[in-house]
C-alpha cells in the first residue's frame, strides 16, 4: 500500500498552498529526503522532501492546484503493508474539523454579518483580496478552515449563496470548481442609462474564452516585418485570368499559404504543439494551414489540409470553398481541427501590422496585412515605389525563440519577394 504524503503546515497561519511544480513524475523512484515538489504559499516557495523512499504511485495534486493542509499531494509506494491503518487515520482526521465547525454556526454568522460590519473575520490577506476582487463581502462568507478561518475555497464556493451580489448577473449554470477559479468582476458603471446590455452570443463566449485561454497558455511575442512584393503582384495579375477561367478566384492568400508551408517545413518548431502534461514538444508531419475567416456569426478557422501536396489553384479554390462554408455555417469540426499554423488576413480590409492571438494548440500565427505603396530602396540602391506587404508573426515564446522566428520570417520574405523561388522550395 502506498504512503500518502499530505501538505504539511509550512507557515504560520497557512491554510493552503499551490502546487508550483512537481520535480518527479509517476513511476519515478524517490529516496527519503529527496525534494519532490515545490509549494507556493503566501510568503514563499517551499521545496518539500519526501519522508519515505519508494516509487511515485500517483500524483494526486496537479501543478496549479490549490491544496489545503492535510490534503494528499502524492501517493508513494514505499512497500509498507499497512493498508488498513493507512486509510483509517485519514478518515478520522477528516471527521474532526467537521465536528469543530457546527453547521448551525455558519448560517448564524451570515445573518449576523449583515447587522455587524465590524465582525471579526479570520482570513489571510490574499484571501481577503480575492474576496474583494470578486466583489464578495468576506464577513458574509461561512468559514470552513481551522479555527474558523475563511479559506480561498470558501470564496470560490460562495456563488451559491442567496446573498451573493454577483449571482443575479451570473449565468444560471452552476459553476464548476475550475471555472470558479477565474476571477469574475461585475462591470459597474455610473452611466447605466446611456448603456444597453445584451447577452453574449454563445459564439462570442467561445471566442472570448479561447482568446483568453490562448493568452494564458502561451507567452505571446509578435515579430513585425514587411516585404516588397511587386513580382508577386505581377505573377498574380498574370495568372488571375487563367484562374478565373476555371472559376477560381486567385488572391494573394494562396501565395502566402505556399510560402508558409515551405517556411514551416524548414522551421519545424512552427509546426508543433506543446504537450504540457508530458512536457514534450509534438512535431507535426503534416501541413494543414488554417485560415481565420471572419463571418457575421463569428470567427472560424478552417484549415487547408495537406497544403504541401496541393497546387496554387487547388489551394485558392479550397480557401473560397471553406470561406463559403463558414458563411453558411456549414463547416465541419474536422475542417477546423488538426491545424499546423494559422493565417489571419486583415490586409483585404486595409489592415497593417497587428498582434494576432495564437490558435491553440498551435504555437504560431501569421498576420497578413495590406500591400501598401511605399518608398523602397531596390537592389540597385534607387528609391522606387515599392509594394510592401505587412507581416506579423505571433509565436509561443515557450517553444520559439525570437531569432528562430525572425529567420523564419526572413525566409518567407525571400519566397514572397521572388515567387519563382516558391517553385523551387514550395
Amino acid at each position: 500500500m502506498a504512503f500518502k504524503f499530505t501538505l504539511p503546515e509550512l507557515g504560520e497561519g497557512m491554510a493552503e498552498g499551490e502546487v508550483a511544480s512537481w520535480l518527479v513524475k509517476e513511476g519515478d523512484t524517490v529516496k527519503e529526503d529527496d525534494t519532490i515538489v515545490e509549494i507556493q504559499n503566501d510568503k514563499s516557495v517551499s521545496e518539500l522532501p519526501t519522508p519515505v523512499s519508494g516509487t511515485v504511485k500517483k500524483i494526486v495534486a496537479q501543478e496549479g492546484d490549490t491544496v489545503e493542509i492535510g490534503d494528499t499531494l502524492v501517493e508513494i509506494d514505499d512497500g509498507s503493508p499497512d493498508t488498513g491503518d493507512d486509510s483509517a487515520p485519514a478518515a478520522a482526521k477528516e471527521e474532526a474539523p467537521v465536528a469543530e465547525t457546527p453547521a448551525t454556526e455558519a448560517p448564524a454568522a451570515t445573518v449576523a454579518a449583515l447587522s455587524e460590519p465590524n465582525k471579526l473575520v479570520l482570513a489571510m490577506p490574499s484571501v481577503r483580496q480575492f474576496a474583494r476582487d470578486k466583489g464578495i463581502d468576506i464577513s458574509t462568507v461561512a468559514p470552513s478552515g481551522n479555527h474558523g478561518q475563511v479559506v480561498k475555497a470558501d470564496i470560490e464556493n460562495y456563488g451559491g449563496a442567496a446573498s451573493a451580489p454577483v449571482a443575479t448577473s451570473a449565468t444560471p449554470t452552476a459553476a464548476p470548481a475550475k471555472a470558479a477559479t477565474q476571477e469574475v468582476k461585475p462591470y459597474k458603471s455610473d452611466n447605466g442609462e446611456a448603456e444597453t446590455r445584451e447577452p453574449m452570443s454563445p459564439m462570442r463566449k467561445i471566442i472570448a474564452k479561447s482568446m483568453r485561454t490562448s493568452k494564458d497558455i502561451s507567452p505571446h511575442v509578435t515579430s513585425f516585418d514587411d516585404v516588397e512584393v511587386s513580382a508577386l503582384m505581377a505573377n498574380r495579375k498574370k495568372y488571375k485570368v487563367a484562374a478565373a477561367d476555371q472559376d477560381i478566384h486567385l488572391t494573394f492568400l494562396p501565395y502566402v499559404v505556399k510560402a508558409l508551408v515551405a517556411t514551416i517545413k524548414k522551421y519545424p518548431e512552427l509546426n508543433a504543439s506543446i504537450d504540457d502534461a508530458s512536457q514534450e514538444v509534438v512535431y507535426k508531419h503534416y501541413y494543414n494551414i488554417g485560415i481565420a475567416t471572419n463571418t457575421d456569426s463569428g470567427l472560424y478557422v478552417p484549415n487547408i489540409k495537406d497544403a504541401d501536396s496541393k497546387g496554387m489553384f487547388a489551394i485558392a479554390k479550397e480557401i473560397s470553398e471553406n470561406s463559403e462554408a463558414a458563411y453558411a455555417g456549414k463547416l465541419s469540426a474536422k475542417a477546423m481541427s488538426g491545424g499546423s499554423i494559422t493565417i489571419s488576413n486583415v490586409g483585404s480590409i486595409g489592415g497593417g501590422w497587428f498582434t494576432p492571438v495564437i490558435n491553440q494548440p498551435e504555437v504560431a500565427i501569421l498576420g497578413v496585412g495590406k500591400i501598401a505603396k511605399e518608398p523602397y530602396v531596390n537592389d540597385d540602391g534607387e528609391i522606387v515605389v515599392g509594394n510592401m506587404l505587412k507581416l506579423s508573426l505571433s509565436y509561443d515564446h515557450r517553444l520559439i525563440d525570437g531569432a528562430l522566428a525572425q529567420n523564419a520570417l526572413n525566409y518567407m520574405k525571400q519566397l514572397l519577394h521572388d515567387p519563382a523561388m516558391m517553385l523551387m522550395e514550395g
Partner: protein
Amino acid sequence: MAKDSKKVVDFAAIKADLGKDFKPVQILDNDAKVVNKELMATFSDEQLVDFMKKLVWERALHEQTMNFSRQGRLGFYAPTLGEEASEMGTVSAFKENDFLLPAYRDLPQLIQHGATVAEGYLWSRGHVLGNQFKARAIMPQIIIGAQMVETAGVALGLKKNGEDAVAFSYTGDGGTSQGDTYEGMNFAGAYEAPAVFIIQNNGYAISVPRPKQTAAVTLAQKAVAAGIPSVQVDGMDILACYAVAKEARDFAAAGNGPVMIETLTYRFGAHSSAGDDPSRYRTKEEEQPWFENDPLIRMRKYLTDKGQWSQETEDAYVEECKNSFKDALKDADAVAPEKVTDMLKNTFEVPTPDIAKQIAEFEEKESK
C-alpha cells in the same frame, strides 16, 4: 558671548566615537590563516577535530530537521544554518552544571548541553515531555529577550547557593532592542551575578536588518550602560567563540559579575520554518560574502591541511548524524500524543475549580 563658537560639549565627536573600542576577537580567519598564534597554541588536535565535528553535527541537524519540518513531521523549527560556530563555540565553553537559558534558535546548544534530540523534537511539537530534559536548562524561550531577565534571576540563585556555576543565555540582535535584555544585564550587573549573556548578531530580526535595529554601531556597547564588560567576536570562528566564552565563564564564575558577548554571524536562510522568504528583504550581493564566510570552510581547510580531516570523514559523519536524527524522530514518534487533560493537569498541582471542571469534561470526551 556670541563670538565664542566653542561648543560646551562636542556631541558629534562623542557620537562618532561610540562603540569604536570594540574590535572583534579572531583566531582563525576565513582563509584558514591563524591570526592569533598564541591562542591557537592552546588547542590540541583532538579539540580541533571535536570542534569540526560539532560544526558538522549542527549543520546536519539543521538539514535533517528542516526536512522533517517540510515533511510535516515536526512543528516549528528555527534554522541555524550559518550560525554553527557562534552556537557550538560558545556552548562548548560551559560546564555541565552551568545553567542554560536558550531562545528558540538554540536547540543545538540545548542538545549539546545534555538534552536529547528526541526531546528537542518533542519540544518542536509542543509536547510537554520536550521540556523535561535532564540538561540543566529551561525550555527554549519563544518570547524575544524574556530569558535575559530569567538569566539574571538564575545567576543570582546560583550565587546565593554558593555554586561553582554560571547562568548563560542567548538572544539575537533583535533581542537587544527588548527592554528585558537591558533589565537582565542591569540586574545581574548590580548584584554581580554569575551570568554570561550571548548576543548572536545574525544580521536580521526576521526581516529587520541589523542597521535598522538600533543606532548603536555595535551591540556589545549596550553592556556599557549596565556597567558590565563586553566583547565582540568573529561569530564564524568557532575557536574565537570558544575562547571568548571560556574567558567570560571563568570571569563570571570567579565572582566578578556578568559578561556580555556579541558574536558576529549571519543567518544564511529564512528566519524560521514558518516560511519567510529572505529574497524579499535582502540581496544576493549582500548574502554572497557571508556564504563564502561559512564557519565550516575555514575549519575544514585548516584541519585538512593538517591531515586531520577529509571529505570522506565528513561525509561519513554527516551520514552518521543524520541517521541518529532519524532514530531520534522515531523515538519522538513513539511518545503518545499529549491529551488535553494532560495539559490541564499540568497547569496547577491542585487544579482550580474551573480547571477541575474542564478536566472532567475532557476526560469524558477522551474516553469515547
